[in-house]
């Protein structure tokens, strides 16, 4: 499958393209028929805007400083996130995968683009495109190398393939040298890519997200 995302088609005079017209028409017809309400779309847009990797970072930092929370998070990702006030607006379950000295986790959705949206927001384009989806399960070390991430050979790389109902989040390893850091400082280190598993956390490099 060709998976390059083309630039949206906008006709030269700046009016919306065919598919934007289609999206608008479908939405308005469904509203006219009473199947959906326009306010639901507005509300969901607000929900989507409220979800960013900062939420996931908050979860990770809490897990690093609170062993009991970490245990609950690994047992049931969804209910532990809900403890921190992160609502799940869909029916998905969340499995949190802990990186250790022996195991490095990587998440992917080979079939489409399933992603832990309630805690990370919408996925980056590369996560939805063919190269990552096809190769992550087959040659994860090469994929990681393209992200500049080298995992020692004696560390097992475990790739988890998401489904419509089960989503994953990587709990990165807490970097050494951060023992005295506050929870907020720790959260500022945690990147989206580290929670997907394509990066590790470098305390020298504060995130730029």
């Amino acid at each position, binding site marked *: *499958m*060709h998976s390059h*995302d*083309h*630039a*949206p*088609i906008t006709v030269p*005079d*700046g*009016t*919306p393209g065919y*598919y*934007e*017209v*289609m*999206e*608008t*028409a*479908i*939405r*308005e*017809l*469904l509203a006219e*028929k009473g*199947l*959906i309400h326009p306010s*639901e*779309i507005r509300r*969901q*847009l607000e*929900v*989507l805007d409220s979800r960013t990797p900062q939420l996931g970072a908050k979860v990770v930092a809490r897990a690093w400083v609170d062993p009991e929370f970490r245990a609950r998070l690994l047992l049931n990702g969804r209910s532990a996130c809900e403890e921190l006030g992160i609502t799940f*607006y*869909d029916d998905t379950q969340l499995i949190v995968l802990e990186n250790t000295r022996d195991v490095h986790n990587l998440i*992917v959705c*080979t*079939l*489409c*683009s*399933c992603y832990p949206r309630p805690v990370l927001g*919408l996925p*980056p*384009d*590369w996560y*939805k*495109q*063919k*190269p*990552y*989806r*096809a*190769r*992550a*399960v*087959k040659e994860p070390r090469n*994929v990681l190398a*393209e*992200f500049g991430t080298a995992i020692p050979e004696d560390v097992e790389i475990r790739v988890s*393939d998401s489904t*419509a109902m089960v989503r994953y989040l990587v709990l990165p390893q807490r970097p050494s040298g951060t023992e005295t850091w506050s929870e907020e400082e720790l959260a500022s280190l945690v990147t989206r890519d580290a929670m997907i598993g394509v990066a590790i956390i470098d305390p020298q490099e504060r995130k730029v997200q």
Partner: protein
Amino acid sequence: MTPSEALVKRLPNDIGGLPADRIDRADHELQPWEKRCHALADVLDFHKIVNAEEKRRGVAALGTELIGKLSYYERWAAAFANILFQKQLLTPGELALKMDEVSARFKRESEV
């Protein structure tokens, strides 16, 4: 395994493990209509009108050629139209008329 057997065993979106290009890490900010399309998908899922799996199958059913020509959310819009026709919640005629109306409205708005 014959080529047709391989195709039977692997649906078009089932690409895990296949050879593919290098990863292009360029990202793009979603256009407002793309975000609305995502919100629409979520609302359709909440109401059990179209769930995530139906949407995924609806995209696959567009066929390789069309999938290759459309961007991510363009596929979703086309898939929603087809799924809603199949479920008899919309008719193609209704959608065509509404699209004409929306198109004319956008055109008027752009002229203001």
